[in-house]
């Protein structure tokens, strides 16, 4: 069968179908990291089940020299390692693509497609021959298919070998057997297929200034550098790895070997109500404290978020969003908590939100969140999602400015207190409507009574309308004042643009790729040129308003059913509703460019 694909270098997508709990993840990330080390932009999306062992799981790797590494949906190569899902996996390969499978057992005829190439590798056979013990055989089978892929895609064998050496540093026996398995697959492929395939890789110039990291790890680093000392959490996918990371960073950087002291305290709380309570208590006392959770946790935190808002206590919450409602799909991604977070709790409440788009921004937003929470004495919620939080992304290396000092906001210290007459909690607001607070134990004059019940500007209990209103009116103004502190939107204007496209968070790459595609004429259909804006937080600032104002029509691309960002933009800017249209994708997988292109083209009637 003749070649259906033209040669393509450093631009392809392949998918690995496995059974979870069989050790495939290590092999898959080995491939991803190797490609990264070759200096080629790459992404890996782990599509795993809410289960521990025995169910289908997929890993998608996309290689794209120009850096468009959003999820790809047509695959050049399918590595079909799970007989359970053969049919479906083989169906997904694009015409002219390739399927690699374990030829130890023959493929059913009805699985065979005429328009794709089948690359059979007798993986089980090879491994049973060379290795003993089921554990070893199962694990190394993964490395063996990795070897075959290295060959067919022309991944730099040396890079892979070095990586193995690093991974198994000090574990020579393990390294050796892995190396053998790698070779087995590699050699077999070289012998039996004409390597490399038309789409393949070539070493690029090293991505010096880049790292490969997931968002939860980057967030944890941000918390570490921001000086957070108290963390409280309740385990929940996909937020768990954030606290795991924070904990091990603390064990490494916050343990004082001299004194043996741990300069941090992490509370694994009994539930999310407790977790946010701990954060509020610690912040009330002046510590930088945070919790990490997902949708269900946010729902449970609703009541106490209102307390922190009304009593004006800082609190930092990381919501790593997953697919709702209810338990929903815990291992799938979505951006479905935007509205709930913006207005969390009963009564009139409005919160500060940040929307990181990738791990690098997670690091930045984490630090920012603590500064904002203390500056404005209010909860700040950072909304990432499973795609950002748990997948590895190639991002600019993180940098740290050693001159950074925490913005503690307006806090009176012992000296200040000695000066003043009597301290009243909510008196003396500045132009940002923030009144100075005191911290317990600092000075006798600083003592005051904090309450979630009706209070006046002095902090005294009240049931009097004017006194009550004076305080809540200030809170509304304070929230608005925060707009100047939110990260400005990322805007890209394009010559001749006729529309705007607005998005947030993990939609970034897919949307930008889509805009480039839309700008190309598409068989007959004229090109669509669009300006781009990615909002990075709420309340919205001048730049956001200006962009929306300047565009007669803007599409709001987001990953939820109800167009929640669009709703927030409608309510919280002066934009006319009719100028904003939704493009939505909310099936639970990371966004891909074609979904955006299709969504916009169809609505533009072309």
């Amino acid at each position, binding site marked *: 069968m003749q070649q259906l694909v033209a040669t393509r270098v450093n631009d392809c997508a392949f998918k690995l179908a496995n059974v*979870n*709990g*069989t*050790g*495939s*993840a*290590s092999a898959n*990330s*080995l491939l991803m*990291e190797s490609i990264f080390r070759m200096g080629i932009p790459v992404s890996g999306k782990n599509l795993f*089940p*809410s*289960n*521990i*062992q*025995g*169910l289908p799981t997929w890993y998608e790797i996309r290689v794209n020299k120009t850096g468009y590494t959003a999820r790809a949906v047509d695959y050049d190569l399918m590595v079909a390692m799970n007989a359970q899902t053969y049919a479906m996996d083989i169906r997904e390969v694009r015409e002219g693509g390739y399927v690699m499978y374990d030829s130890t057992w023959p493929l059913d005829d009805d699985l065979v497609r005429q328009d794709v190439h089948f690359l059979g590798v007798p993986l089980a056979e090879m491994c049973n021959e060379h290795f003993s013990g*089921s*554990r070893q055989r*199962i*694990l190394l089978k993964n490395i063996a298919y990795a070897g075959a892929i290295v060959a067919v895609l022309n991944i730099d064998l040396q890079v892979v070998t070095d990586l193995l050496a*690093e*991974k*198994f*540093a000090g574990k020579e026996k393990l390294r050796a057997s892995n190396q053998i398995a790698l070779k087995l697959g590699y050699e077999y492929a070289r012998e039996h297929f004409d390597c490399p395939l038309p789409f393949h890789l070539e070493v690029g110039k090293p991505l010096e200034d880049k790292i490969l990291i997931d968002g939860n*790890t980057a967030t944890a680093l941000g918390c570490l550098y921001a000086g957070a000392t108290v963390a409280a959490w*309740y*385990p*929940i*996918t996909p937020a*768990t*790895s954030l606290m*795991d*990371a924070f*904990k*091990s*960073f603390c*064990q*490494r950087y916050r343990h004082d070997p001299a004194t043996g002291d741990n300069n941090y305290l992490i509370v*694994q709380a*009994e*539930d*999310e109500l407790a977790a946010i309570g701990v954060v509020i208590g610690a912040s009330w006392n002046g510590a930088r404290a945070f919790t990490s959770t997902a949708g*269900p946790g946010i729902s449970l935190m609703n009541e106490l978020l209102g307390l922190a808002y009304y009593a004006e206590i800082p609190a930092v919450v990381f919501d790593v969003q997953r697919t709702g409602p*209810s*338990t929903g799909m815990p291992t799938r991604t979505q951006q479905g908590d935007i509205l709930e977070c913006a207005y969390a709790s009963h009564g009139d409440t409005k919160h500060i939100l940040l929307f990181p788009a990738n791990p690098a921004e997670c690091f930045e937003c984490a630090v920012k969140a603590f500064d904002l929470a203390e500056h404005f004495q209010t909860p700040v919620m950072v909304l990432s999602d499973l795609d950002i939080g748990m997948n590895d992304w190639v991002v600019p290396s993180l940098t740290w400015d050693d001159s950074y000092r925490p913005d503690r906001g307006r806090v009176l210290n012992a000296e200040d207190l000695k000066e003043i007459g009597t301290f009243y909690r909510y008196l003396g607001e500045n132009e940002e409507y923030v009144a100075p607070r005191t911290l317990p134990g600092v000075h006798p004059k600083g003592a005051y009574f904090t309450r979630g019940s009706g209070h006046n500007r002095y902090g005294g209990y009240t049931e009097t309308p004017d006194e009550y209103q004076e305080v809540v009116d200030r809170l509304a103004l304070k929230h608005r004042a925060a707009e100047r502190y939110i990260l400005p939107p990322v805007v890209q204007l394009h010559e001749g643009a006729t529309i705007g496209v607005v998005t947030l968070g993990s939609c970034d790459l897919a949307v930008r790729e889509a805009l480039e595609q839309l700008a190309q004429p598409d068989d007959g259909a004229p090109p669509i040129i669009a300006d781009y804006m990615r909002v990075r937080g709420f309340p919205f600032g001048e730049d956001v308003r200006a962009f929306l104002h300047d565009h007669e029509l803007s599409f709001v691309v987001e990953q939820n059913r109800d167009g929640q960002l669009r709703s927030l933009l409608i309510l919280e800017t002066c934009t006319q509703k009719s100028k904003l249209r939704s493009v939505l994708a909310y099936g639970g997988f990371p966004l891909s460019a074609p979904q955006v292109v299709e969504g916009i083209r169809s609505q533009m009637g072309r």
Partner: protein
Amino acid sequence: MPSIVKPTVTHPGLQRNSLGLSMRDYEGGMSTLCAGCGHDSVTAALVRALWEMSVPPHMIAKLSGIGCSSKTTAYFVNGAHGFNSAHGRMATIATGASAANREMIYIGVSGDGDSLSIGLGHLCHAIRRNLRMVYVIENNGVYGLTKGQFSASADVGSKAKRGEANLLAPIDPILLGLSLGATFLARSFSGAKTQLIPILKAAIAHRGFALLDIISPCVTFNDHEGSTKSYLYTRQHELKVTETDFVPVQEEITADIPANGAANIMMHSGDVVRFRSVPESYDPTDREAVADYLMERQGSGEVVTGLLYVDESVRDMHEINGTPHTPLVNVPYEKLCPGSDQLSTLLESFR
């Protein structure tokens, strides 16, 4: 929760119960838990107990929260009604369900995380209401589904590997229940069928809240080398192999705890736990004596198993509320609505 259609295997126990049903009729979807997970053994015991008691499948309500343990309600009695609710809230759903229809047999399956952390308050109050149901805690000392964090429960299996968490006093659901006036308390081990099945049958028969603390080891997260906990640590040491993603296929642990004796059982982690059945002399109706015995044994580091406490004299939620024997859902509307005449009479007092 995924529940794959079950391949037809001819089953040993094709004999029929008094309803003419075979044990197959009490099975559920195929388990998606890790091979060797203790929870699957509990599921099997439930199947057997319900079959032996000839409970009509559709009169069973299977309720659970969220967790590996909670998933198991999908793995037994396909013909029963199932409700896999929210994390920690199962007891509240069960309270309402029972209030509406007291005729159903309520089987609640939960985990130590589901019941002793987020759901602790609800569990305590369900005990207090003496809600008639079987409440099974599949106790593995960890949060399985979220990958092995330590739970608030007693240390199951490997001690040393538990990190600082095991410095916290574990919550013993049995002692807790005793202090709250629970009316049925039992403990067993997932692999101890011969002890477990009779206990389950007794619990189903109990006219009140039956709390079962079933030690059910997690084959995957007792190995803390491989737990997500060490994931990042290893990474920082230039070691990105994440062995979590390899879960060895293990055998379930089965063992017998001799009536009136003790047995040492080795967990997947290699640790040995000593299970003791209560002695023949043991009187599960003497609250003070029970408390004594349990505290004393607890000191000795043994896990006491068996039917530990029972009090059939306490009225259940329905008896306390004087509801009719026919379930409230079956009381005809005509009986519930006082009608227009009564309304106008009543409204006289609002004039």
